[in-house]
C-alpha cells in the first residue's frame, strides 16, 4: 500500500532522498558524530543527575552527514571572566536516520568542528505536501557544551 496524497509519491520521495543523500554525503560532506547516553550504564542520583561516581556513559558514536546552520561564537563576561557560547542547528535526513536506526533525542551529544554540542530541541515538522507520513528532515537545536560535564574526553 503506497503513501497517501496526490503529490510527493513514493517515486518523488525516492528521488528527493537520493539527490539530497548524494549532495550531503558526497559533495557537502559535513560529517558529525552523534553520541547517545546509555541510560542502562549511567547511574542516577536523587537530583536526576548522572552519578558523580560513574559519570555519563555513552553508546558508540555514529557518524552522520548533516547540514549545519552555525551562528557566530559569542563571548559573555561574568564573575569568572570571559566565556564562549554558541548554538547550532544540525539538519539530518530522516530517511538516513531510519537506515542508521538512530533517532536523536534531547540530551544527545553532537561532535563537530572539535566542539561538543548538547541537543536542546528536536524538530520533525518538514512534512512534504503537509502529509504526516512524508516528513523529510529532523532538525536538532544544540548548544556548545562544557567538556567537564561529558565524560567523553579523558581528563589530563
Amino acid at each position, binding site marked *: 500500500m503506497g503513501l497517501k496524497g496526490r503529490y510527493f509519491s513514493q517515486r518523488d520521495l525516492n528521488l528527493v532522498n537520493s539527490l539530497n543523500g548524494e549532495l550531503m554525503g558526497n559533495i557537502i560532506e559535513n560529517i558529525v558524530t552523534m553520541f547517545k547516553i546509555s*541510560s542502562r550504564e549511567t547511574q542516577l542520583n*536523587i537530583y*536526576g*543527575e548522572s552519578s558523580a561516581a560513574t559519570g555519563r556513559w555513552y553508546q558508540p558514536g555514529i557518524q552522520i552527514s548533516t547540514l549545519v546552520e552555525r551562528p557566530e561564537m559569542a563571548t559573555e563576561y561574568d564573575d569568572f571572566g570571559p566565556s564562549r557560547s554558541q548554538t547550532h542547528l544540525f539538519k539530518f535526513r530522516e530517511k538516513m536516520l531510519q537506515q542508521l536506526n538512530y533517532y536523536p*533525542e534531547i540530551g544527545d551529544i553532537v561532535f563537530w568542528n572539535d566542539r561538543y554540542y548538547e541537543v536542546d530541541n528536536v524538530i520533525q515538522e518538514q512534512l512534504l505536501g503537509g502529509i504526516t507520513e512524508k516528513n523529510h528532515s529532523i532538525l536538532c537545536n544544540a548548544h556548545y557544551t562544557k567538556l*567537564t560535564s561529558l565524560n567523553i574526553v579523558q581528563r*589530563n
Partner: protein
Amino acid sequence: MAWRGPTVQPSINPAPNPVQYGMDVSGRRIENNRAENIRRDTDKVDNFSVTLVDIDTAIVKHLDNVINASIIAAGVQVKVPVNYASPERWKSIQSDGFIRDKNGKVQCPAIAVRRSTMSRNDNLTTLNRYLQYPTVKHFSPKNQYDRFSTMNGFQPTKEIYSVALPDHVIINYDIIVWTDLVEQGNSVIEKINFATEDYWGDPERFKFRTSISDYNFQVEINSEQDRMVKSTFSMMAYAYLLPDHYENYKSVVQKSFTPRKIVFSAETTTDNLPVVQNAKVVAKTTELNGNVVPVIDESSIYKDQTAQPNDWINTKVLEYQSFITTKTGSLVTLNNGSGSAIFSFASTSFNPYGSPIEQDLRLIIDGLVVNRLYLTYYTTGSSLIANVVVTGSGVFPTTSSLIVGYGNLI
C-alpha cells in the same frame, strides 16, 4: 579541526585541565602523628556521615514511598510521581518518559521538590566541632592472647570510637504539586499535610522532623497554554550535617585504644633558660604542720652568672615536680541513676606545703583523664574523696576500673 594557532610547543593552546590536585601530591610537608595512624580497614566500624544527599533522599523517598500520593483521574487511580526539580536534560526525556507523552510534553499530576535555603539551627548548637561522643567497645582482638589473671598491673585494652558532634541545620524545601483539577490537588495536599510535624525518612537510614506552615494555591489560565492547578508550599526539615572528613584529613569516626598499663613520669621543658653551669639542687627537709617535707633551696638552683635567682616560675615548676605522686584509688559507690561515682584514696591527702595551685588532683579512669568540669574532690580525715559526674564526662567507671589519682599527694 580548525587552525588554533602555532602548533609548536608550548605555543599550542591545550585543552583546559579541569582536575585540581589536592595537597597530598604537593611538596608541602604534612605533619604526621604516628599515634593517630590506627588501621581502620580491618575493623567492622564504618566511617559515619550525614550529608545533604542523605537529607534530600530522605525527604523525596518519604514523599514518594510513604505518603505515596495518588489522584483519581476519570475513575482511575493514578500515582503522583515525585522528582527533584530541574534534572539533567537527557534524564528528563530519556529516563522520565512516564510523566511525558511520546512527543515530550509533561503530563499531570506531578510533584517537584527543590531545596531552597539552609540555615543554622540556633536552638541546637554544638559548642564546637572538636567535641566528640566516645563509644567504648569492651572487647578488642588485641586482648585475645593475654592472660590478665597472671599479668600484674595490666588492664585489657578497650577500643574507643569517637564520633564528632554534627551541626544542626534547618533546611527549607520548595514543593510544587501540579494537577489538572483542583479536586485532584486537594487530595494530594490533604495527605501531605496530615503527614507533617513528624519524622520523614527511611527507618533503616535517617529520619528528620518536618514542618509546613502554609500552602499556596493557584489556578493559572494563560492564553495559548493549558489550564494548570498549582499548589506550592515550603517545608522545613530539622536536620543535622556531619561530613565524613574535616580539616583535610581527620575522619569523623576516630578510633583509639585505652592503655594497657599506665606509667607516670614527670618531665619539664622550658624555653630561653640560661645555660646552667655547675647547677646544684640542695635537698633539704623541714617540718611543716607536723609533716616532714622536702624544700628546694631557691638560691641554689641557678648558680651561674646569667641566672635569675628570683625566677619564680622556673623555681615553682621544679618545686611542683618534686611533690608529684600517683595513688591508686577504688570505687566506693556507682550510682547509675544519677550518673555519679565516688572514689576513695586511702591514707591520702594533699601535701600541705605550697600554694593552693599545687593542690590539684587529676583523676584517670581506665586511661581516660576526667575533665575538671565533672570532678570535685575533698579531704576527710586521712582520705581523699573524689566525686565524678559520670554523665557526659566521657569516662565509664566500673568496679574493675583502674583508678589513678595524680597530683601533689602524700
